[in-house]
């Protein structure tokens, strides 16, 4: 108990050492979580888009019809 208390006290510098470590962990955890959320949102959007496309496809008759956004990207790259 005493050892734990003296560890947490950090020789009187607890008010500086622990916030520094807290910032380190909070920032890096946020940096880890943010892309995961973005990925989940993107996959949901992609699935919804592919679902819309597959219902349209029999009429279009073209299996490789690109989406508007990817067509813009491809066109931009070849130009």
């Amino acid at each position, binding site marked *: 108990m005493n050892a734990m208390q003296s560890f947490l006290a950090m020789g009187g510098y607890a008010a500086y050492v622990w916030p520094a470590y807290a910032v380190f962990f909070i920032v890096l955890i946020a940096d880890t979580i943010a892309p*995961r959320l973005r990925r989940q949102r993107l996959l949901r959007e992609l699935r919804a888009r592919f679902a819309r496309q597959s219902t349209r496809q029999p009429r279009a008759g073209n299996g490789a019809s690109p989406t508007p956004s990817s067509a813009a990207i491809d066109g931009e790259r070849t130009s």
Partner: protein
Amino acid sequence: MANWIPLWLHRLSSPPTFYRFAGTLLPWAMTLTVLLGAIALYGGLVLAPADYQQGDAYRIIFIHVPSAWMSMFIYAVMGVASFIALVWRIKLAEVVAMESAPIGAAFTFITLVTGSLWGKPMWGTWWTWDARLTSELVLLFLFLGVIGLYRAFEDRRQGARAAAFLAIIGIINVPIVHFSVNWWNTLHQGSTVNVFGHSKMSWDMLWPLLTMTLATKFYYAASLFRRVRTDLLALEGGKDWVRQIAQGEDTP
């Protein structure tokens, strides 16, 4: 003789190949980050003795210095990737450069805040406009500038090229940050760790510092892989390989 290298690189830079490659390495990088980070924390906070001058306040070094090194390392990676992106127009290089910027900004922010928390008890001030501190702040603004410029364009690839240009110009700041403690009179202490020579630090303080440095390197790899994978899915949204992943994968 070394003919296989460009071919191998060329294959790896194709988005679906890199997506799978990064996906395989990601869990390993994350495991090493957590493992090495835990060992370094135990070594730095528990095993290492208190400093004879700074007491326990010096323990901020175990996160401050690795973060500062990462801020410069990530900027250098971003600069090189930007150069490759501008010269050879490789999509993967653009993505690596643009997805490095937020991670670099995170580490630069950590460096500034932990440095401030260390400066208050040791120097008596949270902040001073000294060469090392100011150039590190400029580094943060460069990262934020790259992120902002990238997002300012409607077309992502056009934005990436503009931001890559800014990243290349800003690389001049990296040696300034590094040598600022030698070039100007500064409150910030000089380097204690020397790669080619004798480090002015005892081993029981040095090993947790170096272990944490390794942990942050693996962290960067993991975070970059995670971000690049998502970005590649977004950029290649209409392609077949993305369709297979989106429809086959219900959990991330």
